[in-house]
C-alpha cells in the first residue's frame, strides 16, 4: 500500500478553517495520481492504492465537515446550499470508495482461493466448490470494475475534480 502523500504548507497557528483550504486539495490530488493506471483492470495494486487515497480523502473531508456545513440549529431551513454541496461531494467519494472496496475484496478472495487450490490436498470433487467460487468471483469482479469505470468516466465528463477543488478552496476564511 502506498504511503499517504506528505501534506505541505500547513499553518498550525492559523485557523482550522484556513487549513481546510490548504489540506483538502492535496488529498484530492493524491487520489488523482492513480488515475493514469485505472483503465487497465489488471492494475490491482494501483486500484487498491486509489481506494486507500479515496478513503484518506473521505476521512479528511469528514474532519473538516464542520468548516463547510453550517450547524442546523442556526438555520431555519435545517441546512444551507453549501451544506448540501458538501454532502453531495462526500457521497460521491464514499460511493467510489465502496465500489473500489468491492473490487479489492474480489481480488483478495481470488488470491486466497487460488493459493488454497495450489496448496490443498483436497480431492477433485472437493475442489469443485472452490472452482465454482473462483468463476463466480471473477464475474463479480468484472462487473464491479465496469461499474467503477463507468462512474469514473461520468465524473470526468462532468468535470468533478475541478468542481470539487473549487468548492473546497472557496470556503470563507
Amino acid at each position, binding site marked *: 500500500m502506498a504511503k*499517504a502523500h506528505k*501534506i505541505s504548507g*500547513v*499553518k*498550525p*497557528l*492559523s*485557523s*482550522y*478553517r*484556513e*487549513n481546510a483550504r490548504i*489540506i483538502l486539495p492535496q*488529498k484530492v490530488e493524491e487520489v488523482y495520481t492513480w488515475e493514469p493506471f485505472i483503465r487497465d483492470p489488471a492494475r490491482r495494486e494501483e486500484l487498491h492504492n486509489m481506494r486507500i487515497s479515496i*478513503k*484518506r480523502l473521505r*476521512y*479528511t473531508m*469528514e*474532519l473538516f*465537515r*464542520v*468548516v463547510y456545513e*453550517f*450547524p442546523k440549529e*442556526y438555520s431555519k431551513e435545517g441546512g444551507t446550499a453549501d451544506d448540501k454541496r458538501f454532502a453531495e461531494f462526500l457521497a460521491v467519494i464514499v460511493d467510489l470508495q465502496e465500489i473500489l472496496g468491492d473490487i479489492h*475484496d474480489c481480488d*483478495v*478472495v481470488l488470491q*486466497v*482461493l487460488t493459493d*488454497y487450490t495450489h496448496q*490443498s490436498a*483436497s480431492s477433485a*470433487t*472437493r*475442489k*469443485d*466448490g*472452490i472452482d*465454482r*467460487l473462483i468463476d*463466480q468471483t471473477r464475474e463479480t469482479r468484472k462487473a464491479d470494475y465496469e461499474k467503477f469505470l463507468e462512474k469514473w468516466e461520468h465524473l470526468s465528463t462532468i468535470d468533478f475534480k475541478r468542481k470539487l477543488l473549487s468548492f473546497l478552496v472557496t470556503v470563507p476564511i
Partner: protein
Amino acid sequence: MAAEVKIEASASDETLETCAREIIVNYFHEMMSYKDGAKDGRDIEFVHDMRVTSRRLRAAMDNFADCFPKKLFRKHYKKVKAITRTMGAVRDLDVLINRFQKTLKTLSEAEQAGIKELIEHLHREREEARKPMLTLFRQLEETGFETKFLEFFGRRT
C-alpha cells in the same frame, strides 16, 4: 459501530493545533475503547471498529503532523500504524470467513465440502493472526503507550 468524532462548529475559528490535539485525543480514546472486545475475540465487530478508528486516527495524524515535534510524533504514529496492521490481518480473515459462509448455501452439498475445509483452514489462520495482535497489545500496556500518547497529544504548547 466506529463513528467519526464530532467537531463543534466553533472549532472552525480555533487554531489548527488546538483542534488537532482534540481530534487526535478523541479518536485515540475511541480506538482504545474497542481494545478489550478485540482481545476477547468472540465478537468480530470490535476488531473491525478498532481498525477503522485507527485509520481515522492516522488520517488525522497525517494531516496534522506539522503541529507536533517530529521525533516523538513519529514514534507514536508508528505504534498506531502497527495497531492498524495487526488488526488488519485478523479482520481480513473475518471478512473472508463471513463471505465464504454466506456462499455455502448457493452451492451443492459436494461443492460445500471444499469450502467448509477452506473455512476451517481460515479459522486456524485467524487464531495465528490474533497472536501478533495480542502481543502488540501486551507490549503497549507494558510500555505505558496509552498514557504517553495522551500526555503528548493532550499537552498544549
